[in-house]
């Protein structure tokens, strides 16, 4: 790995071929090479030379030179066949600054405090694990972080947090969940146990962007849940806001939803930079 102080020198005071004559100058060939690295994504992690040329709309010779420079700098490596190029580990230097949130849980905590300030109610963050939802973090109505969180797994059809997540899964995953879970467990008289009603609820949540509770898991409280999503719309988890129905009335909850949704949109802009974990419906929760 080359160090910053390697002493490589640019020609002093001499403009490169690609330098623009007017305005702020750029080095055009370097610009092309630098931009080309962004072609390597989670979706397309490797390229052959021809493929790279086609992707960038440049000649094969230019693509070969660009990949050669990126290889020399350690930003790409050859794969095991030595025929294709993959993103190299030197990209790690972009993590060196290290202040960014790299886990969705840490990211959610700051937004949970904002949601608590708006609602003055409990706010919890839950994640899907196998066919269940588990609450892993929370902020109390008075703004303190929960010291202990209830780890009881809740099936994905019961509670608004579960349904906020379920609604973000693919239809075939939802069908797999129903197939593996019928008869759907009843917790209260209002738990949705009819698969057809559950499908209708999924459509409703998808349309509205949030799920509300029907006292279908916990009696005596009102809850609203929003999904936390990655770039492709896969759920990281769900944030649920709620409290006793005498205090957090339905009227109050519905009046607050637009404001809460704005905060969630901001959170989801940041959460989209992180990939959601795969969900294995058939896997047992620990």
């Amino acid at each position, binding site marked *: 790995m080359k160090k910053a102080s390697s002493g490589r020198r640019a020609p002093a005071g001499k403009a490169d071929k690609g330098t623009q004559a007017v305005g702020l100058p750029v080095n055009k060939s370097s610009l092309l090479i630098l931009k080309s690295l*962004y072609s390597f994504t989670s979706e397309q992690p490797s390229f052959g030379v021809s493929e790279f040329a086609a992707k960038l709309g440049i000649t094969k010779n230019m693509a070969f*030179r660009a990949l050669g420079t990126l290889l020399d700098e350690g930003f790409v490596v050859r794969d095991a066949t030595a025929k294709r190029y993959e993103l190299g580990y030197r990209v790690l230097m972009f993590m*060196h600054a290290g202040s960014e949130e790299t886990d969705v849980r840490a990211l959610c905590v700051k937004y949970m405090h904002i949601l608590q300030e708006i609602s003055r109610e409990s706010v919890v963050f839950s*994640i899907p694990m196998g066919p269940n939802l588990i609450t892993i973090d929370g902020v109390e109505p008075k703004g303190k972080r929960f010291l202990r969180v209830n780890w009881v797994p809740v099936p994905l059809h019961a509670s608004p947090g579960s349904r906020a997540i379920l609604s973000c899964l693919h239809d075939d995953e939802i069908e797999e969940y129903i197939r593996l879970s019928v008869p759907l467990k009843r917790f209260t008289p209002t738990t949705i146990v009819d698969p057809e009603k559950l499908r209708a609820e999924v459509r409703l949540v998808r349309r509205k962007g949030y799920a509300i509770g029907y006292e279908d898991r916990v009696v005596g409280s009102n809850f609203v849940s929003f999904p936390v999503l990655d770039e492709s719309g896969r759920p990281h988890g769900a944030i649920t806001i709620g409290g006793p129905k005498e205090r957090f009335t339905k009227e109050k909850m519905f009046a607050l939803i637009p404001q809460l949704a704005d905060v969630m949109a901001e959170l989801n802009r940041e959460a989209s930079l992180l990939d959601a*974990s795969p969900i294995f419906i058939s896997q047992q929760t*620990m």
Partner: protein
Amino acid sequence: MPAATRNESSHWIFDILELVATSSAPPSAIEIADRLKLPITTTHRGIHTLEQAGYIAQHPMSSRYVLANSTKRLTKALLARFAIRGASLHFLRYVAGASQETTTLCVPLGWYALTVATVLGINEVVDPAPVGSHVALHESASGVALLAFSPKAKIERYLAWVQKSKLGKPRAIQAAVAEAQGQGYALAAAESEMVGELAVPIRNVEGEALASIAIRGRSLGTKSNRPKMLAAAVAAARRIEGVIQLDPARFKNPYDHLPPEQIQLPGAPAAIQRG
């Protein structure tokens, strides 16, 4: 790669990029020029090129330069190369909740243990082990858990590298490796400071470690806390191993084909880089 195919005029621009990326405080154009011994006009051209390419940006409150947000797309793509990370995240969150301590996932990269996921617990964060941080394998419990469950020839090769690089005492490393092999996990507990790290390997069907889950925090310093934490980490590791068995090829380390000695990571000490 033959030298003729390289773009030699790009090197100094990558030097500017590395300086901005790894500086402890955002540098100004003058500081960049000074530290890289570049003419100021050349430095400005390099900075502008990097800005145009979406790698760096001027700090909103000053004339200093920081990494642009779009570089996160590259780090995201790099982390996604380690499929085991995606499959492990939910389990890490579960372990962090059960232990209330910071939980990490490390993978081997060359002779280093690279942290690819960190989930904070709700206890005081003692050592967050940020994503992207890396240490030589014997320097953390996470690394020892990886090393201990590597093929014998690889362990010997590592010990030779350590000796050559003067990074540690091979005998002490061998003892730590043997202990981890015997108990199935690695523990680094500094009793006096009440800070510790407990790491459990995640292994493929051949028994080789692909990654390690580690719990890090003060509460590990108390012996009575350890069985519960170990149980949570082991349970998570076994679940992840179950997922790996469904599609072993997908979870192969993407840099396994490269000789470990050639893998030099950003920010590694000079002594290690010479190794």
